[in-house]
């Protein structure tokens, strides 16, 4: 992607020193990224080998590597997907409101506040989740259990502390909201006037204009923003570690009970200080799994964005 920018044209007229220096720096930066990425991958793989080759009963939990990492992968994906499902529509709505509906003064203030959310350290979100959000969610969870308890997500018994998978998902949603909405706002504000006016001149209302010209134009940007958010949610350590600490369970879809799967990053943070020998290798192997997941998510996003490149509006 980055390292192939400076293919020299077949016949080079005159190469200016400025161009050469810039091309060199750009190429160097591109190569450096690849080297770092490769370095991380090599480290993760080489450190995981002992865990990958160990016999099942040596791994903590005695069930082998797959049954150790499996629930963690599941918990990681589940919490991140909940966060994404909650945050993306909200972030897009906020971005649309700020760009097209809010009076200009309010829009500036609101944009600033949303950006500020991104600057809050994740440990603060963790405490906010435990002490403020979780207790307030308990009555809501009771209601969910009573009315929607037939769904696997809302089976009881409801956690009395509110420190559940759904709480984590919501805290993560708040954490990734600023990233997704800032990027959405950016792409929405870049929709050419030419296209918004084309829609309005056809007799579109403001909402119809948004559906016709803005969302299709901004869609790939919003997907990109969500994937950045997903990346942050997947890798989030502290907030998850604080809220879910000590409640590791296997694979379960129950979102509001007290038995929840842990996430990879939080599990590493919690277990690492007390681990030695093979246990460390096991944790690094789970880190390798997280690395692969993140890579796959990014490739998926790229594929989604490129699928209809013809219609992207980039030409």
């Amino acid at each position, binding site marked *: 992607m980055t390292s192939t920018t400076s293919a020299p044209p077949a016949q080079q007229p005159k190469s200016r020193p400025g161009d050469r220096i810039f091309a060199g720096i750009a190429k160097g930066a591109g190569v450096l990224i690849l080297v770092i990425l490769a370095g991380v991958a090599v480290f993760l793989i080489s450190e995981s080998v002992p865990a990958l080759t160990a016999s099942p009963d040596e791994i903590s939990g005695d069930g082998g590597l797959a049954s150790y990492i499996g629930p963690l992968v599941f918990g990681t994906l589940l919490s991140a997907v909940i966060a994404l499902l909650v945050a993306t529509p909200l972030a897009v709505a906020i971005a649309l409101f700020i760009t097209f509906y809010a009076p*200009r003064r309010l829009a500036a203030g609101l944009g600033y506040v949303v950006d500020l959310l991104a600057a809050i350290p994740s440990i603060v979100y963790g405490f906010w989740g435990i002490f403020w959000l979780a207790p307030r969610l308990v009555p809501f969870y009771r209601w969910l259990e009573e009315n929607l308890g037939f769904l696997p997500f809302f089976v009881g018994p409801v956690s009395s502390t509110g420190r559940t998978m759904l709480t984590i998902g919501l805290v993560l949603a708040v954490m990734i909201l600023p990233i997704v909405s800032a990027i959405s706002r950016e792409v929405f504000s870049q929709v050419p006037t030419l296209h918004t006016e084309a829609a309005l*001149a056809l*007799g*579109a209302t403001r909402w*119809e204009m948004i559906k*016709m010209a803005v969302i299709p134009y901004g869609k790939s940007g919003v997907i990109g923003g969500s994937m950045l958010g997903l990346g942050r949610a997947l890798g989030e350590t502290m907030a998850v570690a604080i809220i879910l600490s000590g409640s590791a369970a296997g694979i379960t879809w129950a979102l509001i009970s007290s038995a929840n799967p842990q996430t990879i990053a939080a599990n590493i943070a919690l277990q690492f200080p007390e681990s030695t020998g093979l246990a460390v290798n096991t944790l690094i192997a789970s880190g390798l799994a997280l690395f692969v997941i993140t890579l796959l998510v990014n490739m998926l996003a790229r594929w989604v964005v490129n699928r209809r490149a013809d*219609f992207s*509006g*980039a030409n």
Partner: protein
Amino acid sequence: MAKRIDVSDLDIYYGNFKAVEGVNLSIEPRSITALIGPSGCGKSTFLRSLNRMHEVIPGARVEGKVVIEGQDLYGSDVDPVDVRRQIGMVFQRPNPFPTMSIYDNVAAGLRLNAKKTSKSDMDDLVERSLKGANLWTEVKDRLSRPGSGLSGGQQQRLCIARAIAVQPEVLLMDEPCSALDPISTLAVEDLMMELKEQFTIVIVTHNMQQAARVSETTGFFNLNGVGQPGRLIEYNPTEKIFSNPDEKATEDYISGRFG
């Protein structure tokens, strides 16, 4: 279908800046009216005030009256969205929706009208509009391809097809040929001659020959100096404007003895 437009004492503002002042004119139905004048004199601004596109720009507003067939466009109970559905617009730069196919571009306005149209009726309307815009034969085999993949002239005709698909009463065209080659320009001019059987057409152009070729009536806008509002200097039958104008300024502009 076609409707007459009466404009009286129209002042048009961008915030505090008065861009156009004191316009009075009547536009006949089923005719082509050309607006000419030097750059910056307010032709586009005036044109956009006729379908309430002017107020889309923050701070922009209008004083005075625009009456279409007895209905005051700027009446307090008039919804600008309804106005724009009746009065179509083609812009200077072709602006098909890049995220839509050729077919969907033409159908876009029809879908807005929220009436349930069956697939076959929609196909007919799209075909008729594309034929109306002289584009059908060039695109009929690639209706599902993106509209932005067409040439500039084809894109402009696609925009015309999109505008006429909703059967507006009036069609406003802001320099529709300024990005086109002579052959596409002639195609668009022929098209305008056909369309005026059904629509009232108002066109802004910098091309004197074009104004002379296609229009029945011509309005000449001018401004006294930078920062001054533009005014309608003369509004007369095209023949008269180009042979024996009332105003000296018109004659100077047309004969190129301007500025």
